């Protein structure tokens, strides 16, 4: 073997050593970053767009329960979506947050909600297409229970100026105690 050949071999060995050193450094850096990432995730928890837990409390913007047919039956959300009525969605006419119950066809049938803007809290029971029971308390009090079907309306209320009861059939007031109009905002 000549001197030139030995020099070439030694050069190649030096180059390989250099490359090996660079790869080792890159691998060490990658493993370090990965390890730090895993440690950070373990300490801080897995970030999520939809939910996170702290102290065993699940924090979400919404939760939907569906039945065996995939139909939405219970929804807890802030704010809640517009109501689905017999296959079509209609505007709610206000922003509310809370709990909705739907029937097997997905029709909204009941809600237990608070409203944004004017802080009422209310509970509703609906037929397939219309609301029929409203139980509401306004921010200052004045709880009212109202039941209606077509032109038949029953209203029971309590307020700072006393209790009230009113039964209406069409245009006719059948009973009003005392003779005043219970207010519903």
């Amino acid at each position, binding site marked *: 073997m000549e001197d030139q050949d030995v020099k070439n071999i030694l050069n190649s060995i030096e180059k390989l050593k250099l490359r090996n050193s660079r790869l080792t450094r890159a691998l060490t850096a990658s493993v370090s970053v990965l390890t730090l990432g895993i440690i950070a995730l373990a300490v801080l928890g897995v970030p999520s767009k939809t939910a996170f837990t702290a102290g065993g409390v699940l924090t979400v913007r919404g939760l939907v329960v569906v039945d065996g*047919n*995939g*139909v939405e039956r219970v929804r807890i959300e802030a704010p809640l979506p517009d109501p*689905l009525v*017999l*296959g*079509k*969605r*209609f*505007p709610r006419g206000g922003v509310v947050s809370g709990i909705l119950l739907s029937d*097997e*066809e*997905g029709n909204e049938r009941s809600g237990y909600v608070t409203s944004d803007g004017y802080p009422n809290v209310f509970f509703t029971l609906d037929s*397939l*297409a*219309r609301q029929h029971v409203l139980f509401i308390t306004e921010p200052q009090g004045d709880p009212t229970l109202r039941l209606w079907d*077509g032109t038949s309306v029953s209203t029971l209320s309590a307020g700072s100026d006393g209790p009230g009861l009113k039964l209406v059939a069409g245009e006719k007031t059948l009973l009003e105690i005392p003779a005043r109009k219970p207010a519903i905002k």
Partner: protein
Amino acid sequence: MKMPREFFGWIFIMSMAYLSVPFLNAQDGSPQIGIWKGHDSGISGLDLSQDGTRLVTCGLDGTIRLWDAHTGRTLRVLRSRETEFYAVAFSHTAKFIVATGDKGEISVFDAQSGKTVRELQGLEGWSVDLALSPDGRFAAAWSMDGHILIWDIEANAKPCVLAGDPGKWGMSLAWSPDGRILAAGRVSITLWDFKKGTRSGELSGHKDFIRNMAFSPDGRLLASTGLDKTVRVWEIPAARELYTLRPEGFVHPSTIGPVTEPILVPLLAVSFSPDGKTLATAGADRLVRLWEAETGRFIRSFQGHAMSVTALAFSPDGKTLYSASLDKTIRVWRLAR
């Protein structure tokens, strides 16, 4: 071991009897000749091409499905930005499929390629119904500001506006067969002279929102179904109510089979047969009912859907009726004996 010939005969007879069960109506023996499945959620709209060869449906699963109207084979599934679709229609020659959903645009699809041709803009909120002019050129939809918008579906132009009552939007629209009248249903029905852009009549009687309307093929009658649980049939030239139907009965399952509860529920769909003699209605009662269009006399009912029936369409020869439901199925009923 040799089986007697009668054994195979009985096997054949029993097999045929078993296979025929799905095609027979439990209530009145009327034939149900098909149950088509494909949608993942309730079906809200349905239309049949004028030649009767293709059916289009749309649903709360955000899809539009094109079917072979004779075999029930799915030909194409269309998707858009919508997450829910509420109404769908073929244009006159079935060149386009037009649909409305919850995103506030009217989508126009090429029926052949399935590609979105254009999105018609301008609605306030969204429209739960649409109507195409008989020549297939114009699409009308309710805007939630109370106006009715009309687009030329083949042009990228702003819509024409029929100025309604501010904020008072409706749920249904129907175009007369001659294209002259656009009926806009809220709680009452406003008849619009389409060419003049003016109101030509008002039909009052329903006590709640009208959910669906249909003109008879000769344009003389208009039928409307409402959340007030009635079907009303109107004579258009006289602008008067001809009769009101209050179909009682709500079908629900029980341990002994389907039970019909004698209650009134909202009605969602109405359609005239091509000869104008028969009126079909359906709704939350889960029944499809046929009536004599001229008199309102009950003819028969079809039972089979497990949830509200949302849309109806007769075949051009009048021998078949298609119904779509929130139970995710399309059922095909044979009318001719």
